[in-house]
């Protein structure tokens, strides 16, 4: 029965996951350096990593908090422009200014998350969706026009912010992916994460359990913005050139498709669908023309036929699979694996 079910102690689980992740990074880097993975394919991998961070970050607000913000690209833009402006202006060596830019990008997006979250999260459902859409569009309009208003060169508006050092690599992208997933995991598997989930499940019940729902809504929303900003900063170092038009409503929806397809509330689902949806159009050039049509059909069919997405709220855990192997005998474990139950 339950008592006989051996559990792997937590520190061991973390160690296993860390080792596996380190192995993945080492193999990846050595394959790239040996030339086994082409330059082009490396770029695709970096883009996959950036999109994974975007998807898992939106998943906090959509899957865990149960809200539907439509301005996620706005936070990404804030992170991207902050990092890019810092890197081009600080005069520091790119190898120094890039990590600082990443942190600054994440922080400034987080500040925007708080500023927008406090008023926006007073609203619910469709109203929250539309107000975040409004904020996202305002961010874009401001980035586009602020130079002409203030009269100096900051974002270069529609002319694009150019010559950003291209510092994003496979290694630093996937380190960021690892850090983002780990921090989201540790947040969700704690009293803070449970408070966030309780708001998704039933706001009134959460309040009557003594949970300060405003605080936790803003916390979830801000966490979501922070990682979007991080992804934006990586994106700036990946492209080397930024234009406000890449952070419109379209981009927000692209990220939403990844989260919805993977299953709202499943981090593994977000990771998988971000990977697949980034890789397919890049690798099958013929497909990329129909990409947006396929995306929109996916949104509709997933909602009609499998609203829980491909993974539901299931979260994969390698150590849980190991546990099952150790406990092979039987106890049919019917436990439903739930949101935020993931390891590393």
């Amino acid at each position, binding site marked *: 029965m*339950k008592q006989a079910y051996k559990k792997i102690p*937590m520190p061991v689980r*973390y160690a296993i996951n860390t080792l596996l992740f380190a192995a993945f990074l080492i193999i990846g880097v050595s394959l790239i350096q040996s030339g086994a993975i082409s330059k082009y394919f490396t770029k695709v991998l970096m883009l996959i990593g950036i999109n994974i961070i975007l998807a898992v970050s939106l998943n906090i607000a959509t899957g865990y908090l149960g809200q539907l913000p439509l301005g996620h690209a706005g936070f990404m833009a804030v992170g991207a422009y902050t990092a890019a402006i810092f890197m081009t202006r600080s005069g520091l060596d790119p190898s120094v200014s890039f990590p600082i830019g990443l942190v600054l990008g994440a922080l400034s997006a987080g500040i925007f998350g708080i500023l927008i979250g406090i008023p926006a999260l007073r609203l619910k459902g469709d109203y929250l969706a539309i107000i975040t859409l409004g904020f996202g569009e305002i961010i874009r309009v401001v980035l586009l026009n602020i130079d002409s208003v203030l009269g100096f060169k900051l974002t270069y508006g529609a002319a694009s912010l150019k010559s950003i050092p291209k510092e994003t690599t496979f290694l630093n992208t996937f380190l960021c992916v690892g850090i983002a997933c780990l*921090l989201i995991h*540790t*947040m969700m598997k*704690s*009293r*803070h*994460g*449970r*408070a966030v*989930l*309780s708001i998704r*499940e*039933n706001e*009134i*019940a*959460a*309040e*009557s*359990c*003594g*949970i*300060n*729902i405003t605080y936790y809504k803003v*916390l979830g929303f801000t966490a979501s913005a922070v990682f979007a900003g991080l992804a934006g900063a990586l994106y700036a170092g990946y492209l080397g050139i930024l234009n406000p038009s890449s952070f419109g409503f379209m981009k927000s929806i692209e990220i939403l498709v990844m989260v919805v397809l993977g299953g709202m509330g499943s981090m593994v689902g977000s990771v998988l669908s971000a990977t697949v949806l980034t890789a397919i159009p890049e690798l099958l050039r013929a497909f990329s023309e129909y990409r947006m049509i396929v995306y929109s059909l996916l949104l509709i069919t997933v909602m009609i036929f499998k609203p829980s997405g491909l993974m539901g*709220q299931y979260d994969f855990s390698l150590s849980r699979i190991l546990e099952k192997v150790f406990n092979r005998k039987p106890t049919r474990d019917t*436990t*439903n694996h*739930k*949101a935020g139950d993931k390891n590393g």
Partner: protein
Amino acid sequence: MDKLVPLPSLGFIPERDLGSTPILDIHHLGVEFGGLHAVDDFNLIIGRTEIAGLIGPNGAGKTTVFNLLTNVYTPTRGVVLLDGVDIRGKSTAQLNRMGIARTFQNIRLFKDLSVEDNVRIGLHNAFEYSLGSALFRLPSYWKNERLAHDTALGLLSIFDMQSLADKPAGSLPYGAQRRLEIVRALATKPKLLLLDEPAAGMNPSETGELMENIRRIRDTFEIAILLIEHDMNLVMGICEGIAVLNYGRIIAKGTQEQIKSNPVVIEAYLGRRGEAKA
């Protein structure tokens, strides 16, 4: 109208509570929705370890009273003292931290979360650690999580539900969901527990068990319990003081005997449920 003169707001207070401040002291509580007095001039006191019942026909405003006490709806008038402290302007969450916990008529569990997580959310404020300790898994995280786990299982054992800890709350049978809601409310360490139709949908033997458990909860945790219930066997079986609500107003209050023999009550309420009384 809204004078702050102490009025005969007395309910029934059991002898053992007579010497101490009442846990709940309500004066002239009222709320209007678009001109309609959903609750009007509601006066009641409840002793520190009293089990009190609030009864009345459907639509009398019983659940509205709970919603006013937990500030889900904001009262338009009246004063409520919880353990001697005015609760005006406190949010639902603050009121819970001050000692009021409740269950809901239409069960509001965190359905997709496990039974244990439901209770742990109730323990949110009991075992605190910072976001930083959670993110970086510092010792205070491990310590408090272990304590929360043990406490949650302990609380579940009140209703013998430990073995269900890993099940999603939404998959439990109806009666078990009601019991889980009570456990979750207890986890917030209330001084006053509000139960909204705890026996709804239960069969007589389950109801009998529930009565035992409510009494045991009162005795173990030494708290006051105010319950709304239609099942007269349960109300007459465990409630020490009873208030009868009709059209948003209290029409009678007192002990079981006083209520049973009150002609106004019989006419307004029990009269239509002759068999329940017999």
